[in-house]
C-alpha cells in the first residue's frame, strides 16, 4: 500500500486548512469517526466561505429572486432569464480579487475563464463579457503593474476565446491599494429548451472528466501544511493557476456540441476547489452518490495525492455525467476537438462520495451533510460607532472657476475616458455589438430578432462606505438608469459583493445593510437577482476595502431601430435635463477629487422617481423621439454634459441651467440629459409632464464649444481641448 506523507489529522491541522474547532467536531460527528487527511481537505474546501456562503447565506435570502422572466435563480452555475423570441440569457459575475493581486495577468485571465465556463456549462453560448475593476491610487506600489497585468489578462483571454468584452467599470481609490478588485461578468444565450443543469442523476451513469490535465495549481494553502512532512517541498508549493484560453475555446465548442448529442445528463465546470466542489455539488443537487476512481484522473505531473487531486484548481476542466452506454458518442466529439476524456467514476444511489486510489478507499463521506447542510453563521453585526460623524454634512467650497474644476476632474483617472482599457479588448467579435464600451450600457443584437440586449456594471464604493444601504440601492438604481438611457427594460441582475472580513461586526453590518439596500431597490424597480458571488476577506493589514457590491444588470430592448446615443449626434438638437436637482455632496467626487474631502451621507435614492424616469426614457426611446440620452451619475451635471460632447465627432453645446457653482457637480440621483430634434421637443416635455418627471429645456447642440450659463455667469470651453484632456488622461497617468 502507498504510504502518504500527510499531516496528522487533529484540530490543529484542521485549523491550518481553515476549519474551526466546531467545524472539525461537526465533521467528526457526521462521520462518526476521525476524518483522514483527504476527507478533511475536501470538507474544508466545501465549508470554505467561498463554496459554502456560510457568513452571507442568511442575508442573501432577502434578495428578490423571482420574476416573470426568471427561469433559474441563484443556486446553479449561473442564472437564467427569458428574453423572448424563444431565447434565454444566462449570466453571472464572479470575483478573482486575491489571485489578481498576487499575479494580475494570470489572476484576471483565470477569472474570465471561470465565469465563461459557468455560463457555457448551462448550455448557453457566451456572447459578451464585462469587467468591473477597482484599483488603488495609480502611484501606489505595484499599481501600474497590476493595472497593466489585469487589463492584458482580461483582454488576452476574452480576445482569444472570441467573446467580446463590451462593458465594465474602472474605479480608483486608496482603499484598494493593497487589495484590488477584479470582477468578471459573462452572458450567454441559448434556446429556451436547451438549458442544462448540474444535477447528477441515474445510478450507474459514468462520470467523465474533460479538458486540461490536473496539476498542483492553486491548491489552497493546505499543501503548505504538509510541507514539513515532505522531501521536495519546493516542488509542492501551491502554484499560481495559469489560464489557457485556447483550451477554453475548444472546450467551449466541444461541450456545446456534446450537449447537442443528448448523451449528457449533467455537466459542471471545475472551479474553486476543482474536482471536489464540482462532483459534490452535482451529487448534492441530485441527491445521489459518487464513486470516483482517482487513478483515472489525468495528471500533468506524476505523484499527486488524492488530497491534491481533489483540491487542485487547474483551469479549463469540466466534469460531466453521461447516459450509460453513450460515452462513445461523447468521447468522439471531444477527441475530434483534440481534448482528453477520462472515465473517472460513476453516479451511485448511496448518497456518499467514495474515492478510491491505488486499490484503496481514499475517502468515504456522506455528501448532503457536507453540501446542502454546510454550516451557516449569523455573525455579530455592529454599525460603526462614528456613523453620526460620517453623516455630518460636508462644507462645500464653491468653485472659483467651474471650467478649471471641470478640466481638473476630466483629467483624473476616475473620470478620464477608459478607451485605453477597452480598446485592448475585442468588443466587436461575433458581430452583435451595436453599442460597445464608451456609452452608458452596452447594446447587443439578438440575431434573427428585432430585439437587443443591454448590460451595465455599476456601484459607488464611497457611497457604500458612508451608507451601505443607500449605496446598495444606488448601485441598482444607477444600473436601471444606464439601461433606461438605451431603452432597455431590466430582466435581472447579478452581483459581486466585495467586502472585508465578515468576522468584524462592522463588515457584517455593511454587508447586511448593502444587501437590504439592494433588495429594496430591486423590489421597487422590479429587478430580480438571478445569480451572484460573495468575496469576503478583502483586507490588508487589518484595513478593509470599502464595501463594494458591484451590480451587473441585463435588460431587453424590444426594438433596436432608432436608438439614441450617449453623445450628441448633430447641431440644432434641443437639450433637456430630466429629474430633480438638489444640492447633494455626501461622498461626492467633486469634494473628494478637488478638495480632498470625503464626508457625508450619500445622495438620497428616491426609488419611485427612478422608476418614473426609467419608464419615461424607455417610452421616449421606443417612440424614436431621442437622438441622445445620457444619465447623470458620479460628478453630476457638468461631467455628464461634457461626456455627451465626446462623440466620434466631438460636438459643442450651449446651455443655461438653474444650477449654481458647486451645484453643477452635485450628485443628485434620478437625472438624465436627453437631446431631440426641435420638432420633437414639445412631445418630449409633454411626456415628461405626464410621467411626473421634472424636465426643462436647457439649450441646444452645435458649434465646437461647451458653453454654460448659470447664475448670471457664463463659461466657455472648446470641446476639442476638453476631449484632449479626457481622452489622454489615463495613459498619461499610467506613464505611457
Amino acid at each position: 500500500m502507498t504510504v502518504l506523507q500527510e499531516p496528522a489529522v487533529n484540530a490543529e491541522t484542521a485549523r491550518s486548512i481553515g476549519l474551526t474547532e466546531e467545524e472539525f467536531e461537526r465533521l467528526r460527528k457526521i462521520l462518526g469517526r476521525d476524518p483522514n487527511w483527504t476527507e478533511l481537505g475536501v470538507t474544508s474546501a466545501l465549508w470554505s466561505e467561498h463554496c459554502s456562503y456560510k457568513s452571507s447565506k442568511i442575508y442573501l435570502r432577502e434578495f428578490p429572486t423571482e420574476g416573470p422572466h426568471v427561469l433559474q435563480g441563484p443556486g446553479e452555475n449561473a442564472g437564467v432569464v427569458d428574453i423572448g423570441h424563444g431565447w434565454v440569457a444566462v449570466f453571472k459575475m464572479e470575483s478573482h480579487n486575491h489571485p489578481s493581486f498576487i499575479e494580475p495577468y494570470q489572476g484576471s485571465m483565470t477569472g474570465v475563464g471561470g465565469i465563461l465556463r459557468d455560463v457555457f456549462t448551462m448550455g448557453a453560448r457566451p456572447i459578451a463579457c464585462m469587467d468591473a475593476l477597482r484599483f488603488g491610487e495609480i502611484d501606489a506600489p505595484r499599481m501600474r503593474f497590476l493595472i497593466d497585468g489585469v487589463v492584458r489578462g482580461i483582454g488576452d483571454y476574452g480576445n482569444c476565446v472570441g467573446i467580446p468584452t463590451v462593458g465594465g467599470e474602472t474605479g480608483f481609490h486608496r482603499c484598494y491599494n493593497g487589495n484590488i478588485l477584479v470582477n468578471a461578468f459573462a452572458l450567454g444565450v441559448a434556446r429556451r429548451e436547451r438549458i442544462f443543469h448540474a444535477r447528477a442523476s441515474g445510478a450507474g451513469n459514468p462520470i467523465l472528466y474533460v479538458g486540461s490535465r490536473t496539476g498542483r495549481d492553486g491548491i489552497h494553502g493546505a499543501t503548505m501544511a504538509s510541507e514539513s512532512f515532505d522531501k521536495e517541498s519546493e516542488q509542492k508549493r501551491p502554484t499560481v493557476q495559469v489560464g489557457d484560453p485556447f483550451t477554453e475555446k475548444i472546450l467551449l465548442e466541444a461541450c456545446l456540441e456534446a450537449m447537442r448529442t443528448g448523451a449528457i445528463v449533467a455537466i459542471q465546470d471545475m472551479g474553486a476547489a476543482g474536482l471536489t466542489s464540482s462532483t459534490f455539488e452535482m451529487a448534492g443537487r441530485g441527491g445521489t452518490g459518487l464513486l470516483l476512481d482517482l487513478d483515472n484522473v489525468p495528471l500533468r505531473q506524476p505523484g499527486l495525492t488524492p488530497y491534491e487531486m481533489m483540491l487542485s484548481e487547474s483551469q479549463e476542466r469540466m466534469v460531466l455525467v453521461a447516459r450509460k452506454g453513450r460515452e462513445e458518442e461523447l468521447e468522439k466529439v471531444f477527441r475530434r476537438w483534440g481534448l482528453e476524456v477520462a472515465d473517472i467514476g460513476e453516479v451511485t444511489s448511496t448518497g456518499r462520495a467514495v474515492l478510491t486510489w491505488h486499490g484503496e478507499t481514499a475517502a468515504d463521506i456522506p455528501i448532503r451533510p457536507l453540501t446542502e447542510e454546510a454550516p451557516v453563521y449569523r455573525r455579530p453585526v455592529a454599525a460603526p460607532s462614528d456613523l453620526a460623524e460620517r453623516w455630518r454634512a460636508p462644507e462645500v467650497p464653491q468653485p472659483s472657476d467651474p471650467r478649471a474644476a471641470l478640466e481638473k476632474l476630466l483629467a483624473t483617472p476616475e473620470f478620464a475616458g477608459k478607451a485605453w482599457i477597452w480598446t485592448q479588448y475585442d468588443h466587436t467579435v461575433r458581430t452583435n455589438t451595436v453599442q460597445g464600451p464608451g456609452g452608458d450600457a452596452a447594446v447587443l443584437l439578438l440575431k434573427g430578432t428585432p430585439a437587443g440586449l443591454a448590460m451595465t456594471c455599476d456601484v459607488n464604493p464611497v457611497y457604500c462606505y458612508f451608507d451601505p444601504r443607500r449605496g446598495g440601492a444606488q448601485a441598482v438604481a444607477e444600473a436601471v438608469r444606464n439601461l433606461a438611457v438605451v431603452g432597455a427594460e431590466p430582466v435581472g441582475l447579478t452581483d459581486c459583493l466585495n467586502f472585508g472580513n465578515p468576522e468584524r461586526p462592522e463588515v457584517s453590518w455593511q454587508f447586511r445593510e448593502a444587501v437590504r439596500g439592494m433588495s429594496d431597490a430591486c423590489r421597487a424597480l422590479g429587478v430580480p437577482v438571478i445569480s451572484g458571488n460573495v468575496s469576503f476577506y478583502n483586507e490588508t493589514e487589518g484595513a478593509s476595502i470599502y464595501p463594494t457590491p458591484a451590480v451587473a444588470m441585463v435588460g431587453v430592448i424590444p426594438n433596436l431601430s432608432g436608438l439614441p446615443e450617449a453623445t450628441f449626434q448633430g447641431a440644432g438638437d434641443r437639450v433637456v435635463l430630466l429629474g430633480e436637482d438638489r444640492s447633494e455632496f455626501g461622498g461626492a467626487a467633486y469634494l473628494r477629487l478637488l478638495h480632498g474631502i470625503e464626508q457625508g451621507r450619500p445622495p438620497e435614492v428616491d426609488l419611485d422617481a427612478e422608476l418614473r424616469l426609467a419608464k419615461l426614457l424607455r417610452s421616449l426611446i421606443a417612440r424614436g423621439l431621442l437622438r441622445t440620452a445620457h444619465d447623470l451619475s458620479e460628478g453630476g451635471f457638468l461631467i455628464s454634459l461634457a461626456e455627451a460632447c465626446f462623440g466620434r465627432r466631438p460636438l459643442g453645446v450651449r446651455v443655461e441651467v438653474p444650477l449654481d457653482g458647486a451645484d453643477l457637480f452635485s450628485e443628485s440621483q434620478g437625472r438624465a440629459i436627453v437631446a431631440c430634434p426641435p420638432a420633437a421637443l414639445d412631445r418630449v416635455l409633454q411626456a415628461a409632464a405626464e410621467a411626473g418627471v421634472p424636465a426643462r429645456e436647457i439649450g441646444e447642440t452645435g458649434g465646437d464649444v461647451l458653453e454654460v450659463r448659470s447664475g448670471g455667469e457664463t463659461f466657455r470651453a472648446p470641446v476639442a481641448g476638453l476631449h484632449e484632456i479626457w481622452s489622454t488622461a489615463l495613459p498619461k497617468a499610467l506613464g505611457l
Partner: protein
Amino acid sequence: MRCGVVVFPGSNCDHDVYHVLKHVLQQDVTFLWHQDDTLKGCELVVLPGGFAYGDYLRAGAMAALSPVMGAVKRHAEAGGLVLGICNGFQVLLEAKLIPGAMRRNQSLRFLCRDVYLKVERTDLPFTWKLREGQVLRIPIAHGEGSYEDSAEHLDALEANRQVVFRYVTPEGARADTDPQWNPNGAARGIAGICNPGGNVLGMMPHPERCSEPILGNTDGLTLLAGAVEAGSQVLGARR
C-alpha cells in the same frame, strides 16, 4: 456561389463570416474542417479571424501546417479565390501563399478599433466594386498585425501592385509613422496584400464586422459582395 469558411481549432470569426455570406449575401456557405484535405467544391475560401491554436508561438504558424491548407494551396494555384481575414491573413503568410510576415503591434498591445483603409487596387475580384482611392472605415482587432518584410521584398510588392489596402487618415493621406492612423506600425502602412495572381487576398481589418446597417457601418459589405459576385463570374467562365 459556393463559399467555404475554414475552421481551425481557435478560429473565432468563422461564424461571423458565415453569417454575412449566408444571411446578408444569400450565398451557399459551408464550414471546412482543418483536418479535411478537401474544399468540398467551394469557389471562395475564407480563412477567418481568431486565434488558431491559440496563436501560440506565432499567429498562424501552427494552422499553416494543417491538412486543409494543402487543399487551399492547390485551390489558389488553380486561380481559385482565397480571402484571409486577420488571423486568416497571418495563416496565409505563414503558409507562404503571400509574401512577408506579421509581427506584434508596435505598441505591444492588442488593439480593437476602427481604422481607415485606402483602396489601392480595384482590378481584383475582391475589390472591383470599390473605387480607386476610396477610403473605407473598418474595424481591426489584433495584437500581431505589423506587416514586415525586407526592403527589397517590399519594393517588389509595390512594383507588382500587390498592396491592396493601406492604413491612412480619414482623408486618405498616408501616415505610416503615426500610430493613430497606422495602428500597428505595419511597414509602409500595409493593411492588405494579394498574391501576384490577385486571387489570394490577406487583410488585417474585419470586413465582416461592418456589413450590416444595424451595426452602423456597411463599408465591409461591398468588398465581400464583390468577392462572391466575382466568384460567380469565375464559376460561370469555367462552365
